[in-house]
């Protein structure tokens, strides 16, 4: 079984204007996503966000986004919707409860500078997450102050019952080496490395499995921005034992999501 832990959609062609102008993001519908999955033998995929023209920050944008996610998943049961929440808003916990009640299976967070994710001001939100027993996917980047995996590590220590997926593993491979060797990362079993948009270094996957355990690494592709074929190939080139490769490609995510 292959489960892609990290995909996106765009319902129209987007011309990104910030921070630079002119970058085009193509449209990618649920039908397009299913076709890609069929061509590569991907059974299921987590849909994290629909990429649109606006940053998804206001309560109205967030609710509209999550309602769309749920609508898609009802039509395409192979697509697993995660809610997007702005945890800095006072209604964050209520919005999350509503999204989960309506069918979302986890939550995707962008860490924002308004309230650092590992400050105690964010804890009430994580208490809600904990009570809902859902996984959290964080966008991480070692070179961005507010989205450093070290902040995620702090949160994971405070909330050991929540499963945290570190999207992109923090990107920067020099710093990933440091991170996965740390004792407090090795022992933090609720911290999962997610491979979407990580450097094209199969050795990183291998070393993460060796140091953290193969149960703590999951495949993500960053579709449709990145071709999932390359994300799968990166894992297949890592030289893992077959059973561990299967854990990374799908079994771990099935366990995290409580899938059959």
């Amino acid at each position, binding site marked *: 079984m292959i489960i892609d832990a990290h995909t996106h959609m765009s319902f129209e062609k987007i011309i990104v204007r910030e*921070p*630079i*102008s*002119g*970058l*085009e993001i*193509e449209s990618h519908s649920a039908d397009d996503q299913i076709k890609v999955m069929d061509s590569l033998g991907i059974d299921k995929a987590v849909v994290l966000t629909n990429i649109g023209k606006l940053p998804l920050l206001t309560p109205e944008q967030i609710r509209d986004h999550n309602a769309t996610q749920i609508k898609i998943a009802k039509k395409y049961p192979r697509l697993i919707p995660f809610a997007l929440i702005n945890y800095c808003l006072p209604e964050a916990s209520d919005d999350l409860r509503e999204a989960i009640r309506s069918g979302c299976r986890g939550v995707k967070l962008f860490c924002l500078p308004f309230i650092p994710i590992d400050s105690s001001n964010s804890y009430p939100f994580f208490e809600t997450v904990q009570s809902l027993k859902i996984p959290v996917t964080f966008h991480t*980047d070692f*070179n961005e102050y507010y989205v450093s995996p070290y902040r995620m590590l702090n949160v994971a220590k405070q909330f050991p019952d929540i499963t945290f997926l570190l999207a*992109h593993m923090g*990107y*920067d*491979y*020099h710093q990933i*080496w*440091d991170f996965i*060797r740390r004792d407090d990362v090795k022992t933090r079993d609720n911290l999962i490395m997610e491979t979407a*948009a*990580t*450097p*094209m*270094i*199969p*050795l990183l996957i291998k*070393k993460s499995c060796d140091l953290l355990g193969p149960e703590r690494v999951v495949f993500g592709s*960053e579709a449709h*921005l*990145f*071709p999932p*074929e*390359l*994300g799968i*190939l*990166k894992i297949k*080139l890592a030289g893992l034992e077959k059973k561990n490769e299967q854990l990374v490609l799908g079994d771990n995510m099935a366990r995290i999501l409580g899938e059959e």
Partner: protein
Amino acid sequence: MAKYRIIDSQVRIGEDFSFYFPIKHTPEDQIALMDECGIEKAVSIPYADPPSIQKGFIRANNLALEIAEKFPRLIPFAQVDPRESDAEKELRRAVKLGAKGVRIFSYHLGPCPDADYMKPIVEAAIDIDVPVMLFCDFNEKFAHPYRIIRLAQKFPKVRIIMESLGGVDTDVTWFLADIYEMAGKPCNLILDTSSPHEMTYVLYEQLISSFGAENIVFGSGAPLFHPKLAIRKLELARISENDRELIFGKNLARILKID
């Protein structure tokens, strides 16, 4: 017979102690990897020992030349620290003995690509007609792509190869429009695609439409980065077969004057 002529602009040979997981990659390992992946030739840049100082670079240059003697498919590049007084002399020596280009590595202690001390090296590179490859990472203040573009603008006669397009993380995407806007077209800047992430349509499709395919060269970043991923990435890009052939090998063959 391979579908494309592939020349890899960036491979490392030897022992790398800079990571917590040391990497050992012999010339024989590299040739086996090239055979496995259908790569005809590769630019060989041995790890310097000691790293990042002139003594280590001179040893690495001798090693690159020795390797090329035994394995002509591995194209030697010299490495120098342009701040050293003997840097120009070392570059001329290495090129006389067979080096086809020079690579300069920068980090937070420099050297800085757009500093004045680059002038003798760049002028020597123009004189002996070899390209200058520069390590580039937008997360490093002194190896930032904007500094490399400034160097290319200061010396329009030298061919500057910007290593790894500026970085390995996804956010390099945001710098690409700046790179081609600042560099202009036609220009003397050559973008090497070794190392960056798996995105195809921004790295290749949009880049080609704005920058042109003639100044983009395929690179893998082996052994740390796997060439199979880099090759497949370029195969998946929705570009013309002509552009794909240029990037896979024809451009670098032209730049390095390889038959």
